């Protein structure tokens, strides 16, 4: 039996669109640690983030020398996906909102 569907609240739609516009994205940060090897980190960057060999090594060296590297900026859902995949490979990873 069908039921009448209430029209979406215009104010709610406007607020949602504004929030999406204001969300500049989320940074995915990989942190240095003393157990994961360089080749492992480089491989994971290629595998999970789709980096080519040069970029993967460059980002790995950033993690190694600077202690951390921002490896991606993406909408929250994608950032969380990267966060999850990188952690599955044992990399120390956090996400933070872009300000």
């Amino acid at each position, binding site marked *: 039996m069908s039921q009448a569907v209430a029209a979406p609240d215009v104010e709610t739609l406007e607020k949602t669109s504004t929030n999406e516009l204001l969300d500049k994205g989320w940074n995915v940060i990989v942190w240095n640690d003393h157990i994961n*090897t360089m080749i492992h980190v480089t491989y994971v960057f290629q595998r999970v983030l789709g980096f080519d060999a040069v970029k993967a090594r460059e980002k790995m060296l950033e993690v190694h020398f600077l202690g951390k590297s921002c490896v991606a900026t993406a909408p929250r859902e994608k950032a969380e996906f990267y966060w999850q995949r990188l*952690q599955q490979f*044992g990399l120390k990873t956090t996400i933070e909102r872009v300000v």
Partner: protein
Amino acid sequence: MIIERKHDALEISLEQGERAALHLIFEKMLFAYQMPPEELDPRVESEWYQTSLNRKSGFTAAEYAEWRDLLHILRGEHVPLLEKWLQILNGTEGHLVWTIPLDEADPLIMITNDYRLHRAAEADITEADMEMPVEEISSEDKKMALYEIDSLATLGGALIQSITNIPDEPLNESEHDET
């Protein structure tokens, strides 16, 4: 141990001792992956589920628990593979040529790396321990842990090299200069 790429598979040649070592590692991970995270050694839980980093991200306790449980479920998805590999390693004694399809390479890399992290956490391996000559380490448990961690780093590197062109090389001269 020799690892060779053969079309869409990897052939891993194992001597008896290497088989036994891998068997122990897979058994330990099979057990750990089925244990609720809160029942793990707290040092291992902290290492595997990045407790302090997630607090740094501003996760609430509820958010942390949700993410930790998701990662635990994902680890649990490796249980059937571990059971299969243990059966293979249980086979006839002596030298074994273990063939794994390419799509099992990533899980193998994840699992062996998980073991390294697990062992390092259990044995309280510090950055200083990693850089010290093994003979200067006084604790026998730390020595054994470092040996295992190092051996699995070699295995992990060999696996990765067999499926990619990534060289397992130390920093070159110009990269050293960045310090």
